[in-house]
């Protein structure tokens, strides 16, 4: 398939996954605040911290209030990772591959975008955040469902799904990183008394609360981190996402599972193998932040390799013909 098309599908799916994560994160935080009204504003800052875009936010806003944060993360067109920017970008990508994706997917994304562009969307988000962000999450989930059920599971699908899994792994690692640092600034605190409401919120931010409970019952920081990084079956655990992405990658190249025929397969395979043999004790020993930071760097390298191997072959072409 065309490199540009593969690229568009990959990013279309990443953007929708990103929008969903932002929506869920805002939703969880709004809920959490109901339990601790006194120190309200302090709790909005981490939402921006997770994104790593504090500087840009502070350029545009003087304060971390509920309204400024929600407005920024949801409706700020100049912020490329706001929900509206993500959905608009996903739709632009979809528009350039309309002949490849199913009509249902396109119509759904188009409609989703038109809803967000409606002037009534902002008051809706501010007045009824619960309903609004629930709606956003459902729109994203529906999109994922449509990919699964209305599009052939060929090359295009695999690029899309790989994009989604890469994005998801990245977001789970960021949520864990920031929250862990906030709640447990020192490694030695890992066994002290904890605020279980806050840790529940961490799990909910990755929609992991219920599934975690079924598995572990008791909430401890160690178990939460273990679940979000290493759980084999939970669809948002980092390890699970890497496995799914790797499956897609091998279906794209046609190489047998477990082999590596190109740079992305090598890098992703290595990252997957590390995760296979690491465990939570080592992570805590190494330092949670250092571990996750290192993971994000390696995941970025995988993403870059996917780009140069499949999407930007013109550059390779040009440089190789220059050598001749």
């Amino acid at each position, binding site marked *: 398939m065309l490199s540009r098309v593969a690229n568009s599908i990959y990013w279309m799916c990443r953007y929708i996954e990103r929008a969903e994560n932002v929506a869920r994160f805002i939703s969880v935080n709004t809920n959490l605040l109901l339990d601790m009204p006194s120190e309200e504003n302090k709790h909005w800052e981490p939402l921006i911290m997770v994104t790593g875009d504090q500087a840009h936010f502070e350029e545009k806003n003087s304060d971390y209030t509920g309204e400024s944060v929600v407005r920024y993360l949801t409706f700020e067109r100049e912020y490329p990772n706001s929900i509206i920017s993500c959905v608009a970008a996903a739709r632009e990508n979809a528009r350039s591959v309309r002949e490849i994706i199913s009509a249902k997917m396109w119509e759904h994304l188009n409609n989703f975008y038109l809803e967000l*562009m409606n002037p009534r969307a902002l008051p809706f988000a501010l007045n009824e955040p619960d309903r609004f962000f629930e709606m956003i999450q459902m729109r994203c989930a529906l999109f994922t469902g449509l990919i699964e059920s209305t599009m052939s599971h060929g090359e295009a699908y695999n690029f899309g799904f790989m994009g989604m899994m890469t994005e998801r792994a990245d977001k789970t690692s960021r949520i864990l990183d920031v929250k862990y640092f906030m709640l447990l600034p020192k490694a030695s605190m890992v066994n002290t008394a904890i605020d279980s409401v806050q840790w529940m919120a961490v799990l909910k931010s990755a929609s992991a609360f219920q599934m975690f409970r079924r598995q572990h019952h008791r909430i401890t920081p160690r178990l939460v981190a273990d679940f979000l990084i290493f759980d084999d079956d939970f669809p948002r655990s980092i390890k699970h996402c890497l496995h799914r992405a790797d499956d897609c990658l091998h279906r794209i190249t046609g190489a047998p599972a477990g082999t590596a025929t190109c740079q992305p397969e090598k890098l992703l395979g290595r990252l997957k193998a590390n995760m296979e043999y690491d465990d939570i004790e080592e992570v805590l020993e190494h330092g949670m932040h250092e571990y996750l930071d290192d993971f994000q760097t390696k995941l970025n390298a995988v993403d870059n390799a996917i780009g140069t191997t499949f999407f930007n072959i013109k550059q390779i072409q040009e440089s190789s013909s220059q050598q001749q």
Partner: protein
Amino acid sequence: MESLKNYDPGDFYDELFKAPGVPRSGSKLLIDKLISMPPGELEMRQKAAEALLLKMGITFNVYGREEGTEKIFPFDIIPRIVGYKDWEIIESGLRQRIYALNCFLQDIYNEKKILKDKIIPEDYIYSSKTYRKELEGFTPPKGIWCHVTGTDLIRDNNGDFFVLEDNLRCPSGVSYVLENRQVLKRSFSQVFEDSSVRPVDEYPDRLLAALRHLAPGTTDTPCIGVLTPGIYNSAYFEHSFLSQQMGVELVEGQDLVVQDGFVHMLTTKGLQRVDVLYRRLDDDFLDPLVFRPDSMLGVPGIMEVYKKGNIALANAPGTGIADDKVIYAFVPQIIKYYMDEDPILSNVPTYICDDKKSRDYVLDHLDELVVKAANESGGYGMLIGPHATEAERLEFAEKIKDEPRNYMAQPTISLSRVPTLIGPEQVEGRHVDLRPYVLFSDDIYVQPGGLTRVALKKGSLVVNSSQGGGSKDTWVLKNPEN
């Protein structure tokens, strides 16, 4: 519906009514159905149709504005009906015209007999911006230049058809024909069936066949693509739609490279050779090495591959000379010259401003005439004398004097009208034109139907979508009306 029951065609030729309250025989079924609908029903169907078009994202972009200016092409639910006999004239007239224009293109880039015989002053050819001297001496695959044409027809007060414009470059709009039909079939299924309307849906198959016809003989499975300028082009929806309907790749210039004498697509598995491109990109942007050097949309080197015969392009570069609005004035002579036949479809009388006598006439009669720039399209660069202000007319007079070669003028023709829904339970006549689509392959196919464009503003004669026009489904009847 009262306003339809008592509908008055007024001083105009009406496509559906022959006299006040009296439908034409081919329209009777439709009009009876519309009149019998309960109040509000037609608006409801109109709204449902619009919602469907927006949801499907059948939109066009308006040039020169910020993002968020995608609009649905306004659509009117009352179809235009073309009778069996009228269609016979249109179809045979277009076959004749397109065949002759193709002969003209082959001649003008090769032997130039028509110039040597002084049928057309050669100055008109060489001074045209759309004449491509790079193509001189070239014969495209199978000798076909204009594979896809969309000819604009209008009808005057007597009901006679005239050709208003030939569009031989990248005519757009056929996707609306196909989509409008889908919507209309749902809206009026019974009447549609009873009226025996000729189908339009063959078009993508026919287009694909025409493209395959061009592929070099070396392969049984040619790789075919639609070349689009990209998602910001006003007709992007159509490019995507056609490639989807034909099951071929939709490519942009950035997806293509020239290597080893062939054009290739950049795919996730490396380079793949392309054999035929249906290009929806103007000549100017096609190849920065040959045409506009600042073009970011084209493919450097593609013209060299083309001239070697290693890729086929539809339409062929250089076809624009045949729809130059000054050359247009010579099409009747072109038909006579190459086919020794009289034109079946007439031209609108045309004054070429380059000619001193005609120019003086035009300048004296600006308040009666329509003036057009020779190489503009989309309703831009145009003056409608009777509707213009004095200042606008003066401005055009200056333009004509400065650049006479670039202008032509025609009498203002009061286009025929079709009843159009303009408000709740309110139907009024609005002016229309008709753009049928013609495919030139081993034979010439005229899609039975075409895009009926309607000027939605009361009294307006400008039907272009960029200027407040909309569209209607066009029903061509299979059987002669009694």
